[in-house]
């Protein structure tokens, strides 16, 4: 395959079967390898779409500063495009995200502003919104509310999956900005009667939630729960366990949030087996494991890895 530039090589990622983790020949799991994108994550799709939209609308012109709250991957994608297009990039990210993500961001020239760990991604959003108010000339693309985020998946990820898996019965992805689930979910619902759209939501320990109260709850503007069929809450231990199973049984080296999606996919697979129904379940491998090596997720016992992950954001 030949492309005019790295940006042109976005998408068209492989969908690979999981012969060992699939429960039977009638109930099969398929992994969409989004780590095969230009900067190594699914976030390249929304990042490229959001920048292209802002350029088209005249919001972004050469020399502009882009501001974005991000726990990593979106910032990395935006930083890469910003470097190629001549924008300054400022990321607001929680201080408890992995060292690799920070290095990658700086490598592509982004500036990082840390937000307190206790507030997680929500706090990063609040800090970014405050900065945007202080710097009206900065452009916040705002992945949580930017329709181009979901649209990228509606126009690319969804059609790619359906073309490769016409018999799809379930689509599973992690729930963050909700862009992947909203975009792919809407597309598949239009094309496939009764397709099930399944969210895997990360469940963190009390260290991460610590100090917040109910009034601070935050729902991304993109979120529409009518697109979802069901929603799983996946704890760190199960996410880690599934990430390791994917590596050990299928050879796929994925990030920890992928383990969360796999856990939900296996939950739906078990229900299909129990009901005696056939299923082709596609789930998103959001990124590779490289950025999480320093968390110790892949070393020692599961319990040790879980202890090391306590208090860290993994999705």
């Amino acid at each position, binding site marked *: 395959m030949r492309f005019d530039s790295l940006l042109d090589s976005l998408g068209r990622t492989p969908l690979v079967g999981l012969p060992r983790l699939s429960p039977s020949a009638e109930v099969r799991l398929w992994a969409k390898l989004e780590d095969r994108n230009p900067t190594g994550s699914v976030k390249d799709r929304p990042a490229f779409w959001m920048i292209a939209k802002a350029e088209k609308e005249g919001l972004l012109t050469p020399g502009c500063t882009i501001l974005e709250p991000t726990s990593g991957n979106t910032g990395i994608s935006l930083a890469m495009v910003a470097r190629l297009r001549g924008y300054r990039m400022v990321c607001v990210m929680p201080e408890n995200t992995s060292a690799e993500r920070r290095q990658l961001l700086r490598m592509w020239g982004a500036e990082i502003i840390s937000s307190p760990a206790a507030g*997680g*991604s*929500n706090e990063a*959003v609040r800090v970014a919104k405050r900065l945007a108010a202080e710097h009206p000339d900065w452009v916040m693309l705002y992945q*949580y509310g930017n329709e181009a985020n979901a649209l990228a998946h509606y126009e690319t990820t969804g059609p790619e999956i359906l073309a490769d898996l016409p018999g799809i019965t379930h689509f599973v992805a992690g*729930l*963050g*900005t*909700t862009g992947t689930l909203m975009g792919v979910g809407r597309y598949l619902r239009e094309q496939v009667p009764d397709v099930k759209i399944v*969210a895997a*939501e*990360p*469940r*963190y320990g*009390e260290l991460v*939630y610590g100090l*917040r*109260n*109910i009034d*601070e*709850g*935050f*729902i*991304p503007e993109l*979120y529409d*729960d009518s697109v*979802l*069929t*069901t*929603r*799983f*809450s*996946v*704890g760190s231990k*199960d996410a880690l366990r599934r990430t390791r199973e994917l590596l050990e049984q299928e050879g796929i080296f994925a990030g920890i949030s992928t383990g969360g999606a796999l*856990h*939900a996919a296996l*939950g739906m697979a078990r229900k299909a087996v129990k009901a005696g129904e056939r299923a082709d379940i596609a789930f998103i491998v959001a990124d590779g494991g490289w950025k999480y090596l320093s968390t110790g997720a892949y070393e020692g016992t599961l319990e040790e890895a879980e202890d090391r992950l306590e208090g860290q954001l993994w999705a």
Partner: protein
Amino acid sequence: MAIEVRIPTILRNLTDGAKAVEGKGGSLDELITDLDSRHPGLRDRLVDAKGLRKFVNVYLNDEDVRFLGGLDTEVSDGDTVTVLPAVAGGAADLPGGRR
């Protein structure tokens, strides 16, 4: 075999500090009633006149029961039910939202 029910820190005063208790029933509703017979007050913390309390999340094998059948969700031996206060459990706080 029974159904394992994981109890959040904030409700462990009702279970003598136990992180998990066991119960039985054919539906979530029956399970909670069964638990309440040994841990009085638990039902009132989870359920009000309209069903599951707003700021309580209950998961059956990690799946949100609000997307299943709420209190009518069928449960069976070997299942794991996880109870979380919405504030500490994810649905209320994470990007992904509160309903």
